[in-house]
């Protein structure tokens, strides 16, 4: 069985910057993007090391505003 490779896509303008996704990421690759402000006036969450994502969907499961879409592929 190969290694799981995930991709997380953020609908940044829907994010309220609550940080719950960051707290449950098992590989600690999420953070609030303090260099940008979204339409609502929050620093949106983003993946700072997207290549390390394993596609577990913990972030999307706990996100209260359904900001995150998760994809997964299996690497051989």
């Amino acid at each position: 069985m190969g290694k799981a490779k995930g991709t997380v896509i953020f609908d940044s303008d829907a994010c309220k910057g609550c940080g719950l996704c960051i707290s449950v990421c098992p590989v600690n690759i999420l953070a609030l993007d303090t260099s940008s402000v979204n339409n609502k006036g929050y620093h949106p969450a983003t993946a700072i090391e997207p290549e390390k994502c394993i596609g577990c969907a913990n972030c999307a499961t706990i996100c209260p505003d359904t900001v995150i879409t998760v994809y997964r592929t299996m690497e051989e």
Partner: protein
Amino acid sequence: MAVVFQKTKGLTDKPFSYCPGCTHGIIHRLVAESLEELGLLDEVIGVAPVGCSVFAYEFFNCDMHEAAHGRAPAVATGIKRVHPDHPVFTYQGDGDLASIGTAEIVHVAHRGEKITTIFVNNAIYGMTGGQMAPTTLVGQKATTAPYGRDAALCGNPIRISEMLATIDGAVFVERVAVNTPANIRKAKKAIKRAFEVQLQGLGFGIVEVLSTCPTNWGLTPVESLEWLEKNMIPYYPLGNFKSPKEEK
């Protein structure tokens, strides 16, 4: 690339009006996902409460009805009796269900109305600014209990699930929490099961969901989840209190 997670069709495109980190959004999504997976979106009728989730009718992508404060179970009873073939659910907070609407929820359970109630318990009145609710924990501060709830003066917090489980007409009673991804997945299973119980025409079902209120608790969203786990779960134990006999 396989899609592991995407927004359910059970929710509209309207952004939630909730504060950052409010777990109402998670619970809305769990209900919407359950309805979508059971193929009920075209026929289900929901009843929205008064409270923070008063605009739930804007967010669920199904037929919805608004009820007066606490009266959602009574309105749902009427809808269900006129449309017995349609699944009906109410979505209520603790100020709505456990305080002003206590009579309605007790009697809807006694009558064994074939509806499903999603009861969101965050131990405080959210929309009106953080007043003490019947579910507020002893010692917990609220704007109307600035030194913390005093059991000698206000009594102890009400455990709705345990109370309803003693009623014959209530056939499915479960308490879940949304503080971790694992608990969120369990909560989804319970909500889906509650709808299945209604589809089988077995009686009244309720899922109590322990929720957070970062704004009125005065904590960050992440601290709120920890507070829920340390303080609410010990007083409001998670688990299934009642399910239909053939399941056991």
